[in-house]
């Protein structure tokens, strides 16, 4: 059933209940009232009839006195007064009897009243007429023999009305008894109606709040991302419909989210692939420089080995010199091996592993790889590293790629100008700020930001993907990457990375590798 229908039905039911209770309440009340009204009417009529009766008695005695004196004038005066008085009383009595439902149709009472009403003036007329004709004996005889009948009839009238009063009183008593019994019924009915109204209200409220609670739980589940949560509401009411719609929406949203996750995964994969391709490409571009960088220690090592052999092949082999030469050769080979392993690490596939890193270490690893390339352009790489830098949580290979991109960009920008490439690090609040500054051609005039768009390039052989990939890597690490023009020409690229909290508090012990290149300048 619809909630609107249910609410309307409940309202109607409650109104009906109240109406029924009201009817039950009015019943005993009307019983008592009508009984009281009848009682009052009959009582009033009885009083009026008693007055008429007194008038009739009065009439007898006063006329007896008046006729005794044989004074026609006195009699006439007395008669007029009696008649007026009687007329008022009898008309009042008649009015009350006619208006009383109990008495109006009582033929005996009406007949007696009519008889008295007509009879008393009639007797009065006769006595006055006889007296006026001088026949006082006849007047007195009429008073003696005929007026008593009038008194009789008057008392019949009184008895009749008093009988009605008694009946009415009994009836009123019975009504009161009945009303008292009905009052109990009224109490019961009120109680039942009240309970039913409460029951109706409760069930109606429950019919609304229970589905609402279910819907609320569903909404919260959805907000949590629990797309499997289903709203179980049966019935045909509006909230059940809403529940079905909610379930459908949750399905759709769940599908959309799954779709998005798949797309993001694909995107991430694509980006990783792209980044790797870019790295490989870059490494390929650097191949000559890298080869030089590797060959140089190997060449030096070969010289040292030859020196060692020379010292051994002397007639008097100088084993001390030979050992020193062999040690130098080993050192050079180790350097070459380190460079190769770093190159290898740049070429391997991403494993997306985040680990605590010291950005300064990465810079230190990057500088020897790019040194030959820089030299090719007549650029010297300098570092200004904040040794109190906190660790960051990052993917080593991705971060190396960013550094390499920015440094290569800087080196290439100084193709014609030559100069210094300065890589600096700085702990700044909860972030680590890295900057790569060159003194090259600077940024395009019409907006520094477009250089971060894909396929934007100023180099004839560039892919235009380097800065775009770098920015997306930094953003995926929760940091920012931007560029700014230097006042003295050239550009500086900055990026930030969020610092690891604990490492901010307790910075890792510095790896003191007093490399000769530190803060050094390579020509």
């Amino acid at each position: 059933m619809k909630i609107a229908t249910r609410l309307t039905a409940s309202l109607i039911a409650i109104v009906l209940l109240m109406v029924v209770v009201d009817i039950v309440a009015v019943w005993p009340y009307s019983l008592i009232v009508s009984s009281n009204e009848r009682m009052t009417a009959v009582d009033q009529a009885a009083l009026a009839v008693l007055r008429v009766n007194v008038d009739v008695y009065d009439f007898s005695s006063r006329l007896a006195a008046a006729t005794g004196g044989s004074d026609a004038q006195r009699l006439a005066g007395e008669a007029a007064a009696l008649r007026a008085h009687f007329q008022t009383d009898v008309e009042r009595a008649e009015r009350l009897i006619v208006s009383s439902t109990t008495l109006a149709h009582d033929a005996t009472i009406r007949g007696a009243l009519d008889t008295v009403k007509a009879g008393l003036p009639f007797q009065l007329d006769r006595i006055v007429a006889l007296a006026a004709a001088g026949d006082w004996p006849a007047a007195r005889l009429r008073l003696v023999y005929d007026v008593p009948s009038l008194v009789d009839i008057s008392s019949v009238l009184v008895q009749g009305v008093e009988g009605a009063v008694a009946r009415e009183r009994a009836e009123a008593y019975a009504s009161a008894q009945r009303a008292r019994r009905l009052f109990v019924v009224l109490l019961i009915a009120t109680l039942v109606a009240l309970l039913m109204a409460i029951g109706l209200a409760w069930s109606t409220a429950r019919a609304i709040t229970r589905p609402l609670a279910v819907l609320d739980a569903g909404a919260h589940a959805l907000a949590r991302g629990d797309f499997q949560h289903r709203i179980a509401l049966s019935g045909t009411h509006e909230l059940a419909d809403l529940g079905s719609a909610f379930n459908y929406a949750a399905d759709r949203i769940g599908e959309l989210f799954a779709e998005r996750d798949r797309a993001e995964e694909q995107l991430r994969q694509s980006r990783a692939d792209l980044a790797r391709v870019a790295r490989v490409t870059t490494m390929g571009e650097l191949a000559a420089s890298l080869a030089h960088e590797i060959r140089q220690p190997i060449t030096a090592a070969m010289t040292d080995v030859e020196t060692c052999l020379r010292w051994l092949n002397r007639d008097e082999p100088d084993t001390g010199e030979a050992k020193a030469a062999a040690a130098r050769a080993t050192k050079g080979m180790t350097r070459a091996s380190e460079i190769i392993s770093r190159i290898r690490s740049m070429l391997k596939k991403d494993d997306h592993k985040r680990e605590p890193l010291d950005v300064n270490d990465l810079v230190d690893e990057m500088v020897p790889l790019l040194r030959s390339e820089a030299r090719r352009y007549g650029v010297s790489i300098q570092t200004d590293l904040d040794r109190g830098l906190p660790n960051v949580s990052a993917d080593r290979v991705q971060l190396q790629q960013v550094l390499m991109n920015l440094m290569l960009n800087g080196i290439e920008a100084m193709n014609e100008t030559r100069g210094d490439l300065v890589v600096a690090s700085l702990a700044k609040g909860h972030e680590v700020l890295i900057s790569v500054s060159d003194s090259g051609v600077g940024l395009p005039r019409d907006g520094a930001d477009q250089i971060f768009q894909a396929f934007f390039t100023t180099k004839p052989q560039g892919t235009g993907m380097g800065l775009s990939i770098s920015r997306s890597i930094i953003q995926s690490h929760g940091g920012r990457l931007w560029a700014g023009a230097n006042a003295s020409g050239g550009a500086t690229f900055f990026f930030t990375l969020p610092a690891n909290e604990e490492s901010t508090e307790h910075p890792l012990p510095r790896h003191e590798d007093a490399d000769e290149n530190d803060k050094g300048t390579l020509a």
Partner: protein
Amino acid sequence: MSRSTCSFLLLIVLTAEGCETRSAPAAPVTITFTDSAWWDTASRRRRSDEIRQFTEETGIEVEQIMSTGDPAMQLALWRGLLEKGTRGADVYGFDATWPGMFADEFIDLKQYVPASEVAIHFALLIANSTVRGKLVSMPRATIVPLLWYRTDLLRHYGYRAPPGTWEELERMAARIQAGERANGRQDFWGFVWAGVGSEPLASVALEWQASEGGGTILDNGTITVNNASAVSSWQRAARWVGSLSPPSVVEYFEPDVSNVWHAGHAAFMRSWPLEFAFDAPGSLPKEYVGVAPLPKGAARRAATLGRYSFGVSRRSPHPREAAMFVRFLCRRDVQLKRALEFHVPPSIPDLYDEPRVVAANPHFAAIRETLIDGVVARPSAAAGKAYPDVSRAYVAAVHAVLTGEKRAPEAAADLEDVLRRMTGLESSRQK
């Protein structure tokens, strides 16, 4: 839910109320009854006894509605009851004029009363109660006026028999009155009668003029009242006023006549048979009371019929029960008891031969004698519903003559005009 709630509550209420409504046994039928007999205490007591007997026999309750003694007033009262929306009475005590006037208002009692039961009554009464073949009322008594006289005074003044004619009455009344007054009874009168300007005078005056051959006002579809016999009978009565009868006789209703006579203030009285039951303290001893038929005039003896019957209203919701009550009141044994105990003259001829009745009611002989050839009817059959107006005009004319306001011939002529306009009938003279 709302429907079941409602029915549940109703059920509670009805169950509670259901305890209240018990099925009462069928209430006994109650019929209502009105009769002028209420007016005197003796009749009322008698009637109550009869009703009690009827209720015992049948289980039917009877409620009495009072009425006044004056027939005109009673008529007005009866109409008043009907007009006020009360259904009126079921059974009415009838004046002799009512069958003619109100034949349509009452049921035909022949539906409920076997013919054999009707046949036991005086044919004359049945005839008066039958209008166009409809038995409008049933006789319960024979009510005809009589001449009441003082046996002691007649004997004292040497008369062996009551007067047979109006002339004899005048002579005897004058002589007795003069004799009594000579003995110091200045308030003694020869003859008292109901001379008030109301319905009783219609009966009295009609008897005067009919006995003299003056007709009964409307005869054979014409207005006959303006004739010499009628006029002379009125003139004779006018002479009585202040001579044989007290000047105040023109204010006398029947109770006044009776009061004065029973108080011993008159030698003769024209009154109804029920006077015999008059037993007020200080009234005349029974042995001083004699009864004779009304005196004859030049033409005949003439006595009008009084209230002798009962009818059942056509508006009665219980006509069968009402008719049962009428049959009961008119029954032979009831009439017999009434005659023995209350001196009410029966309407059944053979009761007049019943030795106990004769012994208890010596005056019944005068009634039977009256019935033989003395009964005249007031013209209610001829006037129909206009009878009250006709009667009122007639009484006014006669009363004017009695009080000396008008001369008799003039009054008769004027009355003739009034009646012509009133009834649309022609006068016998023009015919």
